[in-house]
Structure formats: C-alpha cells, structure tokens
C-alpha cells in the first residue's frame, strides 16, 4: 500500500508547476530561432554605395532655367508642397488661408551674399551678384542637426547622408535652430492640399514634422542618380568624396571650390566650383 504524504504530494505538484511554466518559454525560443533562420534582409543589388556621399555644383553651368528645372524636379518627385498652388476645394474643403511666410523647400536658389555671407566682398566679381546659387542640405560631416535631435529622427547614415526618419520626428524644431544653412522646413499644416500632383513613388509628409533634402536616398537605393543631377544638365555631380577615383574628387582636384560657412566647422559635403 503506497502512503501519500503531504510532503511528497507538494513535491510532485511543484515540479509539475515548473514544467507548465517552462513549456511556453521553450516553445517561444524554438519558434524564434526557427523564424530568423528563414527570413533575411538585404540591400538592393543595384544600389549605389559610397563611404561619404557628396555633391559638387558647378556654378558656371547654372542659370535661371537650369536652377528652376532642378528645383522643380526635386520638389515634384518628393511631394514638396507649394503654398502658391491653388487648393482644390472639392478634395480639400475648408482649407484655411495660406500664411505666405511659411514655405517648404528642399533645394532652392539663393543670392551669393546669403549663401556665402563670409565671402562677400567690396569688389566681388560682378557675375556673382547675379548667378543663382542652388543651396540645399549640406549633409555635413559634423552635422549640428543630428546632435540637436532629441529623438534621433535626424541621423547620419553610414554613407554620410544626413537622413530624416519622419516617423520619429516630434516637431520640436531643435534641428532647424541648429542648422546654420536654413536647409530645414517645418510643416505648420497638412501639406497635401498644396501638392499639385502627388508622386506615388514617395510619401508626403504630415503636419508637425520637419523635412529636408534626403540626397535622393530612395533613388540611390535603386541605382539611380538623384533628381537634381538628372535635371541639372551636368552642372551637379553626386559621388563618393572619400574615393580618390570618383568623379567628384576629379572635379575638386581640377577646380577651385568653396563650401558654405566653412568656418563653423560643420564640414559640408556640398562643394561649389566658382
């Protein structure tokens, strides 16, 4: 006759409880290792790579038409709103009137004295007074906006592009205060009513986020050159600044070039051949 003591019963019950508790954990671990063995993430085969992306703008090749074509190509492809666009009342009823102090821009024309305030001179060559200088995000090596962003929504990618994760942007605008080039714009309102033709290949932004040039990261991933390069008729070249064999380095070797507000130490990656 087997006598069950309270002690032996509690022992068996305790072991059983541990077993029941452990089963889901073991199952979870097993399924996890099983899953990660099968799925894989990778870059596109056709993607363009660089150690540090940079841009060289030959200001001698840029005139009003080219500058406008570049700006238009960029803004159209990236769904950048134009607040002079007339709102379609049917699609967007009750859109409040526009405050024209607000604007959103990724690449635009600037006068020499504003683009290069430290290089203004009493007897500056006259051509500089009239040339349109295309300015955009400089994708600085020491980007102050990246340091200012409290949520790491703005970050420096391994290949040197200063990129924004709009999902993370909380709209604090510290980056706009930090950027010495005014390259960033804030969406004070829903941009969609002011987009003439929405490009399907790129998202729009929403109210309350900052935006700026992304050096066409979405195109580099497809092995294509940025929109500004394609529209510039050879005036803009984008390439690897750290590769001595690259086209941008060859251009910088042959010509004298300047960068914007170099004395601030942000190390811009956009060079201007003058």
């Amino acid at each position, binding site marked *: 006759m087997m006598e069950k003591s309270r002690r032996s019963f509690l022992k068996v019950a305790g072991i059983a409880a541990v077993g029941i508790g452990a089963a889901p954990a073991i199952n979870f671990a097993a399924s996890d290792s099983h*899953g990660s063995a*099968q*799925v*894989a*993430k*990778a*870059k*596109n085969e056709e*993607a363009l790579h660089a150690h540090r992306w940079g841009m060289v703008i030959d200001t001698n090749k840029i005139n009003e038409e080219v500058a406008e074509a570049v700006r238009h190509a960029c803004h159209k492809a990236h769904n950048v709103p134009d607040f002079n666009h007339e709102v379609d009342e049917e699609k967007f009823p009750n859109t409040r009137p526009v405050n024209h102090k607000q604007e959103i821009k990724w690449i635009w024309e600037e006068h020499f004295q504003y683009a290069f305030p430290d290089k203004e001179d009493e007897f500056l060559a006259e051509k500089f007074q009239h040339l349109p200088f295309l300015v955009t995000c400089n994708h600085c090596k020491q980007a102050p906006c990246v340091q200012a962003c409290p949520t790491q929504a703005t*970050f420096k*990618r391994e*290949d040197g592009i200063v*990129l924004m*994760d*709009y*999902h993370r942007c909380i709209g604090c605008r510290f980056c706009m205060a930090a950027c010495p080039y005014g390259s960033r714009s804030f969406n004070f309102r829903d941009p969609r009513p002011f987009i003439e033709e*929405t490009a*399907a*290949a*790129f*998202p*729009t*932004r*929403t109210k309350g986020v900052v935006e700026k040039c992304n050096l066409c*990261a979405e195109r580099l*991933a497809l092995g294509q050159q940025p929109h500004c390069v394609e529209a510039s008729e050879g005036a803009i070249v984008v390439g690897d600044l750290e590769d001595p064999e690259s086209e941008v380095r060859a251009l910088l070797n042959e010509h004298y070039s300047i960068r914007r507000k170099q004395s601030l130490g942000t190390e811009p990656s956009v060079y201007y051949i003058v």
Partner: protein
Amino acid sequence: MSKNMIIAGLAVFVIAVLSPFWFNMATETQAAPKPELLGKAKAEKKCVLDKYEMRANHMSLLDEWRDSVVRDADRKYTGTNGHTFNMSLSTGENSCLGCHEDKAKFCDSCHEYASVSPYCWECHTNPKEIE
C-alpha cells in the same frame, strides 16, 4: 435560513457572471470581417509570413521594416515563403499594396471593426487613390 440565502446569492452571482454571454446570444453581434484577398494576393496564397503570424503581428513586421529601410537602407526582405519583397507599404509591384490591391477591403475593414486608426496614410499614399 442561511442555506437559502447562500443558494440565492450563488444564483445571482452566476447570472451576473454569465450575463455578457447571454447578452451576446440574445443580440446580434457582427463577426470580425475577414480581410478580403483579391487579384494577385489571392493567386499567391502565401504572404511574407504565415497567415496567422501576419494576422497577429503585421504591425510589428511593418515597424521592423520601416526601421530597416530608413535607418539601415536594407530594402529587400525574404519571407518564410521564400519570395523576396520590397519593404514598402505602397510603392511598386512588390510592396504591400502592390499585391493587396484594395486597401479598403484589406486594411480598412478590419481596422474599422477593431477601432484602431493607424496613421500610416497621413503620409504614405495609396496609388489607387492618387489617380
């Protein structure tokens, strides 16, 4: 006396506990809508991950995808069915909406039922709606 009280109390308790079930039996409730598979998605049969995993965890997968694309520039995802997908909500043939063509019947019907309103479409665009 106390025996009657206890039995009456128990009866009230059982009725109270089971009342939601009886209420549901008496009234007509709407079953959760099934995401409708149309066109390419119907022919494909198998999604990026298994059906039940997609149902339960698609939001985590999308979260993982967006970090991968935006921050690491990895844009290709090979799923458990062996196919390689473009990690994108709505751009191109190989994205979510490229296969699940009807957003209203695939995303919205369930989200509405479950009363969740993800803000994906405040920025991302449905190519069908643009045209």
